[in-house]
């Protein structure tokens, strides 16, 4: 299974280590962990916990981007599923709540996939529709109010723990393993990459590109719905206006930082999740450092640009020429 952790992950791992080191300097107790009431606490756990929604989103997003698509609607899907989960939580069992919320995500994914795969719309526009309308639908479900609930089952999903690991982190880890096993344990991952690399050639070679595209948008919708349920469970309520707001951008960012090209054809699940963790480690570090959180966006912009430039073929071309010149001189 070399495909799960390819050699090209070095830059991301180094970046994470550097940011962790900076966090350690900023806040000396950053690496402290303690066990309380059967759950681990500490800044590191906090990073994992808060990074969960974006990590889940990036799991779906990375597959969509691998097919040369993009899904702008994940934030809105989070708001929809959170709204559904919160309004059903106190009157229905956890199984019904989860089925309804994830089912909504599946339908949203089907809709996006239908527009892109069957109608042949450009992914940006196709998912823009649900991004705009989705938040309206979520507000329709909550009737514009912030719906709160107290069902212990659903709250446990956001605040509970298994073997000391917070529940959201355990869920994200489970989803990562599940997704990895499905796409890398079979030829599915390869077929998805083929679809993104050259859809026409793949179709001629016998790949069911439409089915692939439909499947990745559905998976993206389900991941987003799960993220929405966890976000709602975390705050014991659903705020249709703010749940998942702008998280689609963070998810795309995580995927790009993880080295997956927006032009499709290649992807890494682990690195995408690592990208989500890098973003969250940065956020937490800025909070701990006492700088105003307004710096967040600036730092994010600088990091994105750096990663982009490093990945740009032109840039590596220039760097390559420089290296060759140096070698020829030596």
């Amino acid at each position: 299974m070399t495909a799960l952790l390819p050699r090209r992950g070095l830059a991301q791992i180094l970046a994470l280590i550097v940011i962790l080191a900076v966090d350690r300097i900023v806040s000396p107790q950053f690496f402290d962990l303690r066990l309380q009431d059967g759950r681990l606490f500490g800044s590191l756990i906090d990073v994992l916990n808060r990074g969960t929604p974006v990590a889940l989103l990036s799991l779906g997003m990375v597959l969509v981007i691998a097919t040369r698509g993009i899904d702008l609607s994940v934030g809105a899907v989070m708001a929809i599923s959170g709204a559904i989960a919160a309004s059903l939580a106190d009157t229905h069992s956890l199984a019904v709540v989860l089925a309804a919320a994830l089912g909504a995500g599946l339908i949203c994914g089907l809709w996006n996939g239908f527009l892109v795969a069957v109608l042949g719309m450009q992914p940006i526009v196709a998912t823009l529709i649900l991004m705009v309308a989705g938040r309206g639908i979520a507000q329709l479900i909550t009737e514009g109010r912030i719906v709160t609930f107290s069902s212990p089952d659903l709250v446990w999903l956001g605040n509970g723990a298994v073997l000391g690991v917070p529940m959201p982190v355990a869920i994200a880890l489970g989803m990562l393993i599940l997704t990895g096993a499905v796409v890398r344990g079979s030829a599915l991952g390869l077929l998805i990459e083929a679809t993104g690399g050259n859809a026409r050639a793949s179709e001629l070679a016998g790949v069911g590109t439409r089915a692939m595209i439909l499947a990745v948008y559905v998976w993206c919708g389900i991941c987003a719905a799960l993220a929405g349920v966890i976000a709602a469970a975390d705050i014991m309520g659903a705020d249709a206006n703010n749940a998942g707001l702008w998280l689609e951008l963070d998810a795309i960012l995580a995927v790009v930082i993880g080295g997956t090209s927006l032009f499709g054809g290649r992807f890494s699940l682990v690195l995408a999740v690592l990208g989500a963790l890098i973003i969250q480690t940065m956020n937490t570090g800025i909070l701990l450092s006492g700088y105003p959180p307004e710096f967040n966006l600036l730092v994010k912009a600088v990091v994105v640009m750096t990663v982009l430039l490093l990945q740009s073929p032109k840039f590596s071309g220039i760097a390559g020429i420089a290296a060759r010149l140096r070698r020829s001189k030596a």
Partner: protein
Amino acid sequence: MKGLPPVLITAIVLVAGFALCAVQFPNIASTRVVGNLLTDNAFLGIVATGMTFVIISGGIDLSVGSVIGFTTVFVALAIERWGVPPLLAFVAILALSAAFGAAMGAVIHVFDLPPFIVTLAGMFLARGASFLLSTESVPITAPVYSTVSDFALRMPGGGRLTAIAIIMLVIVIGGALLLHLTRFGANVYALGGSRATASLMGVAVGKMTVKIYMLSSLLAGIAGIVFSFYTSAGYSLSAVGVELDTIAAVVIGGTLLTGGQGSVIGTFLGVLIQGLIQTYINFDGTLSSWWTKIATGVLLFAFIALQQGLVALARRPAAKRAGAAT
């Protein structure tokens, strides 16, 4: 193009929508309401004009909302706190936003990066910079502001054509002339049709890319100034999400997101349709604000599906291309 051009369809939808609204609420068909419609959507019309150029050239600009936000904060602080004369502040911010757009265009061209992600970084950068300047709303009390806000041309029927509405109309007309009558405009279409072909035809692709994003950011800067006139304040959270409204207006106006086709007039009509939905919901009173979003989404879908159908008809004999590029 065979059949109805998309702009005409947009115009028909606007007229039909307006007629429907007027039947239900006769008061809508007055110059007062139309005047307000133009004033309320002045900044959107200006920024959408710039976005039309970007999208026709095959790109996208996600940073415009943040540039508007930054502009309002910068102008407010410059006038109120730093004691800069308003006109000088306007010139400074317009130069700054033009330079910002030019930089984004240069990065997109030189490093061959997707516009989506470069302008996304630009969006974070501009919003972050406006947070750094000030996180609170800064009211603007300069006399210029009250003069401009009070200025209005009387229309028959008691409607007021305000200064910012006039600025918007001038920019829309100017943008339409620039796009449809000049070499620059022709090059924008050429770029959107095919970058490689445009380059072979002798279009300076790099220079054009820089100029197009410069134009978009410059117009976003003007929209920001207009927005500060509209609200008489500068606030770092203003115009969040405007880039989506703008893209929606451009698409509803019949511009193809794949580039190469579209018009400024269509975009203007798209802005008016969005404004009309808002006005209808305000008149109705019982409909909640989220219906605006749902209605916009439905309209977006209808227009894109329609365009898709038109394109499919036009290209029927040609080989079908599976999967669309972003």
